[in-house]
């Protein structure tokens, strides 16, 4: 099994604060990984480093066998547009471009604009009839689906999603998760940052961060775990010497975060 992503003792340090503390992790091609943790646990910082939008203070990130620290800004931009599809909690659609134009923007920076292909991507997420609407004329769920269509238009190997259902109701959450499921079945590697138990449970594997330190890891798909271990994959680990840290080669299980973290205990 090829490892698409390899994190080797990476840390992100701001002054005295260790946003991510000495994390080692490998993600094989086609895996669906969820990074869970409370707000401020370092999930997004970790995602930024994986997505070539931030560099680690220490350690090394390898994507498709290429060390990101060896690349300059232009090469990192190339990696982003060729390998990665980004889905954001707040959608980040260009407000003055229609849904289809927002999808085409990703094509524009990647290679060649193809409106037909962009419309097909929107059709895939069930938004063909809303293709010529501006983001302001779309609901939150529809905007997120446009964001997903934009992320998958260039057929990236890795989808990075930061709280993709954070601003969605249950119905739209289900639609988006179904889309991820389809992408996963097609062999796309998905890394989702979330503190939603439902979203996390859809992933094959979950790791938990707390104040930048890896504190747990669990598999939701035994077959995937076996395949991973058979390919020489090891559990994630941290070199941080703090209580509760997953520092050895044994995964520490954890209870899924509940939706209470997001909804304030209404469920």
């Amino acid at each position, binding site marked *: 099994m090829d490892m698409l992503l390899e994190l080797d003792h990476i840390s992100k340090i701001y002054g005295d604060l260790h946003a991510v503390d000495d994390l080692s992790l490998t993600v094989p091609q086609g895996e669906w990984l969820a990074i869970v943790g409370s707000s401020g646990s370092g999930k997004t910082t970790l995602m930024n480093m994986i997505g070539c939008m931030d560099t680690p203070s220490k350690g090394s990130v390898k994507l498709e066998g290429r060390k990101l620290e060896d690349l300059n800004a232009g090469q990192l*931009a190339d990696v*982003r547009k*060729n390998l990665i599809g980004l889905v*954001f909690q707040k959608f980040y659609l260009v407000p003055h*471009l229609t849904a289809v134009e927002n999808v*085409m*923007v*990703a*094509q524009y920076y990647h290679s060649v604009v193809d*409106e037909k292909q962009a419309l097909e991507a929107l059709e895939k997420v069930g938004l063909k009839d809303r293709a010529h609407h501006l983001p302001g004329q779309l609901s939150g769920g529809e905007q997120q689906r446009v964001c997903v269509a934009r992320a998958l238009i260039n057929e990236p190997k890795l989808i990075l999603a930061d709280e993709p259902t954070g601003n969605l109701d249950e119905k739209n959450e289900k639609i988006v998760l179904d889309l991820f499921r389809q992408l996963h079945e097609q062999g796309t590697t998905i890394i989702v940052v979330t503190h939603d138990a439902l979203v996390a449970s859809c992933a094959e594997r979950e790791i938990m961060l707390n104040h930048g330190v890896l504190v747990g890891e669990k598999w939701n798909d035994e077959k995937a775990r076996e395949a991973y271990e058979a390919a020489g994959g090891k559990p994630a680990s941290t070199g941080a010497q703090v209580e509760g840290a997953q520092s050895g080669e044994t995964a520490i299980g954890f209870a899924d975060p509940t939706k209470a973290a997001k909804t304030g205990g209404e469920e």
Partner: protein
Amino acid sequence: MTNTGMFFRMLFSAVFRRRSRAVMAVVASLVGAATLFCLAMICIAVPQQMNEEMRAYGANLIVTPTASGADGKAGIDSAMVEHTTEMVATKGSEKHATYRYENVRVNAAPYVMAGIDTTEVRNLNHHWVVDGKWPSAGKVLIGRDVADAMGLEVGGRITIGYRASDNTSTSASTNSGSSSSSSSDEGTGSANAGTEGATSGQQTQDGRVSSDIMDTSGTEFRVSGIVDTGGSEDSIIYATNDDVTKLTGATRGVDVIEYSAGTEDLNALVKSINAMTSMHVKAQPVTKITSSDTRIITMLQTLFWIVSLVVLVLTLVGVGTTISSIVSQRRNEIGLRKALGASSAAIGIEFYVESAMYGLIGGLLGTAIGYGLAQWLCVAVFSRSISFNWWLAAGSVVLAALVAVIASIPPVHRATRIDPAVVLREE
């Protein structure tokens, strides 16, 4: 759709779907372009207008016969007047008037009479204040000093006598010579030429010569008007050329040609006339009018250019602030584009072209408004319209676009350095 097509689609979407922001940027460019174009139009129109106004205050070039001419008394004949005028006209616009001076007697006292073409003199000397009418057949225009000395009023009668002995060849040539030397200092050569020539070596009072010869015979003329210039014209009697010919009984050339020449290089024109020795004429600039004319125009132009520079700087600041605000409002979008793989250069080009478009639209509208303003100002202040200057208009539109692009460089440069992670930083 090609990528170029997508580029322009994004550009037009940014401009036309974000109208309120776009309007802000366009208005900033528009105000600058309108002010600059209006100032530039006035900068060009005012000196032209001033030049014409200044030239209305009389001649800036005087031509007299040379002492070495075939016959100093003969003056400059009409063919030479025409030839000299052609030389002046080839260098620019011109207005001219000719003067034939004769020494005459009124109530036995000597005066200078000038034979003129009324229309020419009137067109050349807008500053002359004439009480009554200009001379016509049988009617003369007398200077204020002459009128005061003899107690004459408009409509009164004056008897003018001519004696050939008063107009000797020596007197005539002295007349021409002194007109040249005095003209360059005073700018009223014709009048000085006449008075000084006529009174050479004699005591004068109120422009007339004291004399004890009591001879009051002569031709009677009616006083059509009294001229008051505050200069030596006030002691001259002006009559039509025909009346002077009738009075003297002789036809001859003129003693002085005064020009209001529109040439930019008056000295070159003077040199070119003087170089033609076969013409037997001498040209001299009226330095007082010329230098004050140039000085005032230069001062006005400098003032306008300084104001234009200040407006340009203010426009740069205004457009810069507006575009800076627009760019900062789009920080997330820029971060997103970078996250999608856009290079800083690609984003920079998008924003620079967008800024140029704001500048172009603002420049076009501003130039049109600026022309309207300049036209209104010129009509209100100078009572004349100005023609549209296409080169200046094109320059104004290009400058507006350029200013918008230059003003957008610092904010766009800052924006393209945005770390794309800022887009994802919100947890």
